[in-house]
């Protein structure tokens, strides 16, 4: 059994000693099988296409140019705005997402399934649409707090969903032990439950933080200048790709700091508490007088994130003069295109994220950490940069596929693979190694074992990763504009081309179709459709 791990029995608060023994068996000296390592390195190489492109572009500027651009008086302000917004949104997503997840997983709720769907629904709203809705409702809405509010509202599900899943899989037994040892309820939660949900919280927070770094649509509408708006200006007024690349490189450096920070924090959590597998048993809390405030929290975020922008859009629809006759064929074609491309993007993202997630789940070491980190970086870059890097790449490597759906779906895969890595990693990490070992002793090959045992048990996490990618890809605009086949329109593009000329009336049906379509993966992610309330994340 030197290669296996017995699922930990109910550990004690003093799990420190157990964990020290358990952890090395799980992640320590076992060497990653070569095929897995090769696949992961391949996926990592694909993920680093945008980074290579940036190095080429930024590198073609002289050092003097780089210093001059980074030395502009406005750059420190933009940098401070970017970092401040990313940290503030991340903090508030944790502050809202963790309690929301706790209520969904551990509280006695009427309409729990309904609330679970509501909690996932903000995923269906593109941030630029949410910003537009708020701006139309409150004309004075702009600046830091406006950007903070809108991005928080649309990003909370990235924390809520994985934390709720971790809570459902976890146990309250540790809290009970703490209570019997005389700790108060909050202290007991901190000692017993928090360590179980901390990795999920960190993973969600990382996605939020990287997303805010790369966001352009909402911050531009809400007039909060950050690095991405400066990058857009570099393309739009200076026509200077090298200048844009220098600024984008700054974003990559920020992303590296964030990814390493998350890895360090996650690593500590694992060392301290080890795996709390085996037992999934928890008490359901009665809310009593807290029912009303809890319901308000659960309904409030989706109402502000989804309800308000959609309502405003339809109000505009009613008094617009440009409400042209809707072309149902055009709308239907856009729906089909959006769906096909999103599914293609999700498949590619999962194929790329699988080896990286599997490697990170089961093995440790510097190489593994580097591979995982690189997999995340593209998420911190604005879509236009990733899109251009794939123009560059596809023309150089597969010119025949340039401006086809394949390259666009591939771009979605590169852009959004990080959204699948976390879900896949955590679900594979939960598969007991002993089961895999049993399969091997029964004569199954490595690939068969992987397919029949590991992948099957990790399926909910893999599906969740795919759904997250699909819902994001449906809303994607900048890379789609660059890479789509000429003449192919998605819902996001139809929406953009109408709002760009103030034809809000004509835009409304496309906005509605986009939100409805994106609500499907959001609904599936909430887990409510499966009759039980444990979501797949």
């Amino acid at each position, binding site marked *: 059994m030197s290669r296996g791990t017995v699922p930990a029995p109910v550990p004690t608060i003093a799990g420190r000693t157990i964990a020290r023994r358990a952890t090395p068996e799980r992640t320590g000296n076992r060497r990653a099988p070569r095929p897995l390592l090769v696949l992961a390195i391949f996926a990592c190489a694909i993920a680093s296409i945008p980074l290579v492109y940036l190095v080429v572009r930024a590198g073609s500027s002289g050092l003097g140019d780089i210093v001059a651009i980074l030395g*502009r*008086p*406005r750059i420190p*302000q933009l940098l401070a705005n970017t970092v401040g917004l990313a940290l503030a949104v991340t903090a508030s997503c944790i502050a809202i997402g963790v309690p929301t997840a706790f209520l969904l997983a551990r509280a006695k709720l009427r309409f729990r399934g309904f609330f679970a769907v509501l909690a996932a629904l903000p995923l269906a709203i593109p941030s630029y649409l949410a910003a537009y809705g708020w*701006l139309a409702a409150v*004309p*004075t809405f702009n600046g830091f707090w406006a950007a903070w509010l809108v991005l928080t509202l649309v990003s909370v599900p990235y924390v809520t969903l994985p934390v709720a899943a971790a809570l459902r899989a976890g146990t309250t037994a540790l809290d009970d032990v703490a209570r019997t040892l005389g700790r108060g309820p909050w202290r007991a939660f901190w000692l017993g439950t928090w360590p179980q949900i901390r990795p999920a919280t960190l993973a969600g927070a990382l996605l939020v933080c990287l997303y805010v770094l790369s966001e352009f649509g909402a911050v*531009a*509408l809400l*007039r909060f*200048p950050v690095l991405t*708006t400066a990058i*857009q*200006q570099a*393309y*739009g*007024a*200076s*026509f200077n*790709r090298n200048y*844009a690349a220098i600024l984008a490189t700054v974003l990559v450096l920020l992303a590296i700091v964030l990814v390493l920070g998350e890895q360090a924090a996650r690593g500590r959590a694992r060392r301290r508490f080890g795996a709390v597998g085996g037992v999934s048993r928890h008490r359901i809390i009665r809310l009593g007088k807290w029912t009303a405030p809890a319901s308000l929290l659960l309904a409030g975020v989706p109402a502000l994130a989804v309800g308000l922008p959609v309502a405003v859009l339809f109000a505009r629809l009613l008094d*617009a*003069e*440009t409400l042209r006759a809707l072309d149902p064929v055009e709308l239907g074609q856009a729906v089909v295109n959006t769906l*096909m491309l999103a599914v*293609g993007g999700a*498949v*590619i993202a999962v194929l790329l994220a699988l080896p990286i997630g599997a490697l990170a789940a089961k093995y440790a070491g510097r190489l593994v950490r580097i591979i995982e980190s690189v997999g995340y970086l593209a998420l911190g870059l604005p879509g*236009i940069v990733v899109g251009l890097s794939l*123009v*560059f790449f596809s*023309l150089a490597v597969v*010119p*025949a*596929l*340039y*401006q*086809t*759906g*394949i390259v*666009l*779906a591939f771009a979605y895969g590169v852009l959004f693979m990080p959204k699948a890595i976390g879900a896949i990693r955590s679900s594979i990490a939960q598969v007991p190694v002993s089961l895999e070992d049993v399969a091997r002793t029964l004569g199954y090959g490595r*690939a*068969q074992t992987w*397919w*029949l045992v590991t992948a099957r048990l990790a399926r909910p996490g893999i599906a969740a990763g795919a759904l997250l990618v699909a819902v994001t890809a449906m809303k994607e605009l900048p890379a789609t*504009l*660059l890479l789509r*086949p*000429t*003449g*192919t329109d998605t819902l996001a593009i139809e929406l953009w*081309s*109408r709002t*760009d*000329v*103030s*034809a*809000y*009336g004509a835009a409304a049906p496309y906005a509605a179709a986009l939100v409805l379509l994106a609500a499907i993966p959001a609904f599936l992610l909430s887990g409510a459709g499966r009759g039980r309330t444990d979501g797949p994340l």
Partner: protein
Amino acid sequence: MRAFRRGLLVSAALAVAAMTLSGCAASTTTPDGESDGELTLYAGRDEALIAPLLAQFTADTGIEVSARYGSTSELGALLLEEGNNTPAEVFLSQDAGALGALANADLVADIPADTAGLIPAGFTSQDNSWIGVTGRARVIAYDSQSVTEAELPDSVGDLAGAEWTGRVGFAPGNASFQSFLTALRVLDGEDAAADWVERVSANSPVLTESNGATLDLVSAGQLDVGLINHYYWFEDAAETGADNMRAQLKFLPGDAGGMVNVTGAAILASSANDPDALALIEYLVSEKAQRYFVEETYEYPLLPGVAAPAGLPTLESLVNTGLDLSDLDSLEQTQSLLAEYGLL
């Protein structure tokens, strides 16, 4: 084992599905000088505006156009990235700067002089690398409920005064705003321009990301004065009704702040001598197309003899520096000036 095989089958099915995602990558090459009756256009302008024009072009000439719509900045960056591998034969641009960037990178083919000469100097390129199609005046958009037209100065230069603190908005990263500043540098001199930027930047300006966003603020009563292009107002008026417009326009004849920017088109270098590409360029500056732009967008026609939109000051009354608006070296100086005072 059966599940394993089924898994392989599923993977194969997915691969097939992925293949169907690839449409046909139309990349036809024809020998120089021969028409193949097909054309790929990158259009940095609105589809609702351009598509009917292209349909008419096809009806008139029999040349089928495959159009790719996007913003000018994105399509400009895309063309630079594609280089000579671009499938595009013609680029229709929202501003001169993007055309200048392509010309600088040797990615455009010269337009024959007899076509290029149709558009008066100052509204087109100096070296026939691209051709001007329509003109847009810089204007002041003002909130008619808080400012009267009489209160507004006749020169943007006077908007830097203390009475306008916090009341003036513009998009410093926008190409047409930067063209205005270039015009100010040329007409009033470097020192006066630098002085204006310094005083405006210290006067709590409201900075936006686009002309459209600036006008939205004025229309919503959030901003007294915005510096924009005139045709944005007409787009909004088409949506909400001209009588309902809270924002009003003031043109500035004779002032740098009222100068004219142009939209233009170029033939990509990889399609030099393509008669279809040239046919589209000729069509864009034909009387028919010029009148279409006037009627649909209230932009200025650049072809002499076509009447400007009713109610607008004449094109001749507005400032034309005679500069090459696509001159990137000059643009770079303007941007350094904006950067120096923290506006960019």
